[in-house]
């Protein structure tokens, strides 16, 4: 649902993704990366996961969420199993939280990027007033944003204070392969605080330092244990730093009152104005009326810096108007945040202001601001677990990046049977089949089943702390090398996850496949019972063919080849076999004369 007469377009978060999938969903490989602070598993499975499925074929999906928030959610919800996606908790070591909200969908060479304020929660997916920017790589602007998102994720992976499961890192690296990076599209708090970057960006846009008015859209204590809010101290810092004379704050009120943010700030709070329809308009249907009713809870974060010569710069993204978000970098106990800067003309500024005026009204009374409660912190040392399915047995690998050696005790449910796991170099293994059985009660997550993840519990003192366990998205260490490669090929062919028989069985799928895909599928099926060397060769040959056929420039092919070379280098293969495969996938290597 959109109403494009104003500066902003109003629709549900899932709508943009739905239209991208329906337009480009037939291209492969299909991958999705979500960054969120709070993650509501049930809501995600109900709302977004179906959108990421097209005719039984799925996007390989990774959701990175703040470790503390995720733990709090898992503690509260009764969810014990996840669907076919991987949940990766992210932890900022110095003390901030992982707060960016980013969506990156890839279908073949098509990409969709979404950046803004919406978490993967009931609120973010429909209940809150959020602000998101979605763009695909058809336009120059879209390509810049995709490059910006890739650049941010790259930096995130490299940041020494960010703790993230290895398999998630691997998957992100693979999904980003071949995307040209753009370091200027996004501002993030990984190295330096956002405030300085905002000032520089505005100066860059306006070419002189004359900010006239600052408009802030930010939530106010919208949830009890939230990191959201407007900090009066930060407000002052912003005002001083940007040199603005006036500050307008648009936020959520309480019982018709706005927060008391000082005399220099005019506070507007969210109200619903029911405007009578114009006479020439057709009466709205019930659905329209329903859709027209916009959410009350404010969760969007935006900063509009107006310049005295007209026009201005709009910053929006995940950063609330708080100290950890704007004035600190990650290394200094700041949050991980992203902002996108956009240069607006005079009319666009007016449109945005109109939009805000439409939704908010001036608060005439105020209430006293108290400091917000601190965000949820993780307890326990286990970040995440991975189920590695070998040819003989299943192993559970625990990652404890904050504990290099020691012992942890885990259980399948709170107060369940405890299993001691010895940790060495930040990793521990559960090898005993009986223990695995005790942990998962015979329904262990499995690549061939509908459930790819679940929750286990770590004993911390007298209580239990949940942590997510999943089958790694990239089979890498689990399974035979040929199975791992086959998994990539199935994905390249757009049949992921493969069915239990390892073949595309759906009729619709068959119709959707091109003639080349058919040939490749046939070759794969034929190789099913061949020896391991044959299976490796067929899979790698198809991979190279597909990458070459993507026709997306040599840098794209080279980057993707590099990723696959990296994956093959990790496989459990004899050196001579690995050598031949790596040589075959060398970028720029031309196919040898083929003897038919």
């Amino acid at each position, binding site marked *: 649902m959109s109403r494009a007469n104003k500066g902003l377009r109003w629709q549900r978060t899932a709508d943009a993704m739905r239209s991208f999938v329906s337009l480009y969903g037939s291209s492969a490989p299909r991958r999705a990366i979500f960054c969120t602070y709070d993650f509501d598993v049930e809501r995600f499975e109900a709302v977004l996961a179906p959108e990421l499925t097209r005719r039984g074929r799925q996007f390989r999906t990774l959701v990175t969420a703040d470790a503390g928030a995720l733990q709090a959610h898992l503690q509260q919800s009764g969810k014990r199993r996840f669907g076919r996606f991987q949940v990766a908790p992210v932890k900022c070591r110095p003390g901030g939280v992982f707060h960016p909200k980013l969506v990156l969908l890839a279908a073949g060479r098509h990409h969709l990027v979404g950046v803004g304020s919406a978490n993967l929660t009931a609120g973010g997916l429909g209940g809150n007033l959020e602000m998101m920017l979605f763009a695909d790589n058809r336009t120059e602007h879209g390509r810049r944003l995709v490059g910006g998102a890739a650049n941010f994720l790259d930096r995130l992976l490299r940041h020494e204070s960010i703790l993230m499961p290895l398999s998630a890192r691997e998957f992100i690296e693979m999904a980003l392969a071949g995307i040209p990076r753009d370091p200027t599209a996004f501002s993030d708090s990984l190295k330096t605080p956002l405030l300085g970057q905002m000032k520089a960006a505005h100066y860059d846009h306006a070419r002189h330092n004359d900010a006239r008015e600052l408009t802030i859209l930010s939530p106010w204590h919208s949830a009890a244990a939230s990191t959201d809010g407007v900090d009066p101290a930060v407000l002052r810092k912003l005002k001083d730093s940007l040199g603005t004379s006036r500050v307008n704050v648009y936020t959520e009120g309480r019982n018709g009152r706005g927060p008391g943010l000082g005399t220099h700030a005019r506070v507007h709070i969210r109200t619903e104005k029911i405007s009578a329809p114009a006479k020439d308009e057709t009466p709205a249907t019930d659905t329209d009326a329903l859709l027209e009713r916009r959410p009350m809870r404010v969760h969007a974060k935006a900063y509009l810096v107006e310049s005295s010569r007209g026009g201005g710069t709009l910053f929006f993204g995940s950063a609330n108007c708080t100290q950890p978000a704007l004035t600190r970098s990650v290394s200094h106990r700041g949050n991980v945040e992203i902002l996108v800067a956009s240069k607006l003309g005079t009319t666009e500024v007016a449109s945005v202001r109109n939009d805000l005026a439409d939704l908010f009204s001036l608060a005439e009374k105020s209430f006293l601001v108290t400091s917000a409660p601190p965000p949820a912190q993780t307890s326990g040392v286990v970040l995440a677990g991975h189920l590695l399915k070998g040819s003989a047995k299943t192993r559970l690998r625990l990652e404890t990046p904050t504990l290099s050696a020691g012992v942890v005790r885990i259980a399948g449910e709170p107060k369940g049977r405890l299993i001691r796991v010895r940790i060495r170099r930040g990793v521990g293994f559960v090898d005993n089949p009986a223990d695995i059985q005790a942990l998962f009660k015979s329904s262990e997550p499995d690549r061939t089943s509908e459930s790819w993840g679940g929750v286990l519990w770590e004993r911390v003192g007298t209580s239990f702390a949940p942590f997510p366990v999943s089958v790694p998205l990239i089979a890498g260490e689990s399974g035979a090398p040929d199975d791992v490669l086959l998994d990539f090929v199935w994905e390249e062919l757009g049949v992921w996850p493969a069915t239990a028989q390892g073949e595309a069985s759906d009729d619709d799928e068959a119709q959707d496949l091109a003639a080349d895909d058919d040939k490749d599928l046939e070759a794969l099926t034929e190789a099913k019972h061949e*020896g391991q060397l*044959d299976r*490796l060769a067929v899979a790698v040959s198809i991979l190279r063919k597909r990458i070459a056929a993507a026709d997306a420039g040599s840098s794209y092919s080279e980057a993707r080849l590099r990723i696959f070379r990296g994956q093959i280098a990790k496989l459990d293969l004899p050196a001579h076999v690995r050598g031949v495969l790596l040589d075959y996938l060398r970028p720029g290597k031309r196919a040898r004369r083929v*003897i038919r």
Partner: protein
Amino acid sequence: MSRNTISTGLVHQRDVAIWVRRRLADSQGGWFDTTGRNNWVEQYGTVLADGVGLGKTWEALAASALLLVEGSKRRSGGGRRQNIRKQAARVLVLCPPGLVSKWSREVRDPGGFAAHLKRWAGSRARRRFVVETLTEPYEIRRRSDLDHIPSGTIHRARVELPAGTYICNWNVLRREVGSGRSRLAALRSQPWDVLIVDEAHHHEAREAIDTVQNWSRQVRATLLLTATPFQLEPRELHDLFGAILDSQHGAHRVLSRPPVREYVSALTEFFQGVEPPARGLKTASENTLRQALVRSRVRTSGRRFYLIEADGRAAQIAAPERMRESELKELVPSLIKPTSSFEAWYLRRRLELADGGRTFVPTKLRQALSTPAQARASTGRRDGGPPRAPRLDALAAWARIQAEQDLLRAARDGYPRKMLVFTSFVGKAARELEQSLTRALSDAWTSVRKRRPWQRMAKGASRGVAIVARTVERMLNEDAILARSSDTQRLLKTLQSMADDPTPSLVRDLFGQRRFRKLVTKDLRYRLTALAAVLRADRDGGGWTHLHREELRGVRGTIDAIASSSIVRTYTGHDDRRDRDAAGEAFRSPLAPWALVASNVGSEGIDLHTFSAHLIHFDIEWNPARMEQREGRTDRLGRTLKEPVKVYFTLVRGTYDERMLHQLVARQRWHSILLGKTGARLARSEDGQDGVAARIIDYGEAQKLSLDLRPSRRP
């Protein structure tokens, strides 16, 4: 012996012969044609589908004898009597070119079937003509041989060839014949009492049968002989049945009859996870199918199967038709582990083939896994071969170890235990195998020579050769015609010089063993008797005796082969026909060669069983029927060795060989059930998806499913 039975010494052969006679002729001697008394009125032939090496030749000859006697009777005035005019019977045997000599020998061999036939005929005049008809064959190897057949008589403007048995290379009848009164046209249009077609599953056979059936004035009974009536799928039976059922859609009349059709589809469903077919359906299918096809015995003795490993050891495995998929996976670690340089080469080659489309990929991969020369040939480049071939190396290592054991055993008990190696590729591959095996066997002998039992035996070698030479000399003195032959004199000289020359050799050493000497003497006596018969026939002359010269050449070749010292020989399509026949003959003798490398030409029809103990599938065929035929060369009735045949596979781990094995096992399933391998444990799919399966069904269940096609006493 009753009128309606004929004994060949084996019960199952006798049963089949009686059953055929009952199916094709009634007790009154009338042929079943269109009398309407049978429920199978349009049948004029039957398929004899016993397992390989169980004497289908004798079955067919015995059945022919019974049929000829029935056919020569006629009713007159309420009684039956023999019709003298009808005693001019003609039997046509169509077979592949390589089997004409074998058929001729089987028919003529005075100690073989002819002896049983003569005993059955006794002094009864009404049976004598059958003996004459069946034991003095005309051989037609090529078209020109027809010129030497005695000219027939003209009867009602048609040429009638003399009565008798004509053993004919089926290619002669497949070619363009032309019209007129040529002998070929006459052969084609003769009324045949019995038409026997060997290896009838070949399409060449089908073409030849069509020619005869289209042109002949009458074919009264057709006997199709094949151990593998279908190669891959049961529907191939249609072709066979078309030749014996008198209707355009004759084949459908059997296979598409409700019981059989329903049984096949019920079995298909069973393999996909549905309930097994009902018992009544099975019995009905058996009864229907048995009218056209009979299979009295499936296998001679228990074969044992082994996998050759890289270090030359052999690990015993279950028979392929008894394997299930999970067992296949367990086998993988026992396959030959290739060297890393070969693995790298193979992977590069496989990548190349995967890039270049899929044309002929399986063939090229099979070639790549064969010998180094074949692998090089598969690349199309001169320098593209692998450094070593894992299969060949493993085979050589195994052959060395095995030969050492076998030679030591031979030193104890005197029995040579020979190796028969089958390869699908000829030319350089066969040559490489020959060289490699020669080296392995020589090494084995060199090592065994140092062992005490062998040294003890070798001491008596000179004396042993001299004893055999004296025996041969005595045989030549007894028969003047043999003494005059330059071939026999050459044989004698070879033996005498071997006795005088102290240079040791593998074969010469063995002459020190008493039982080995006995085996050699027995073999030479058999061959010299045959030679004498041929020479005598040649001397006596006659219209067609020159045809025996082919046999004469074969015997000469055999003597050469015996005298020669090459311990490994080849039997491939690249070899000259006479050379390879001689190699095959020599392989059956206790002397050299010790190992024979055979290609597909050697995988059907011929006998290589006497002393062969080990059969090696150097590569696997796609077709289980062909594998069965290969094994049938060794696993036959009449083996001198009494221990079970050992069958070996050489398969390379991680390569296309795994696929070949998988396919072979999967295809055995139909063979097992439809051809009545009651002992086979059958695999059944649990998920209903995969071809071969997860759960093995138990013996009882398999018994319930397998069709029993043994001839019943009441047709």
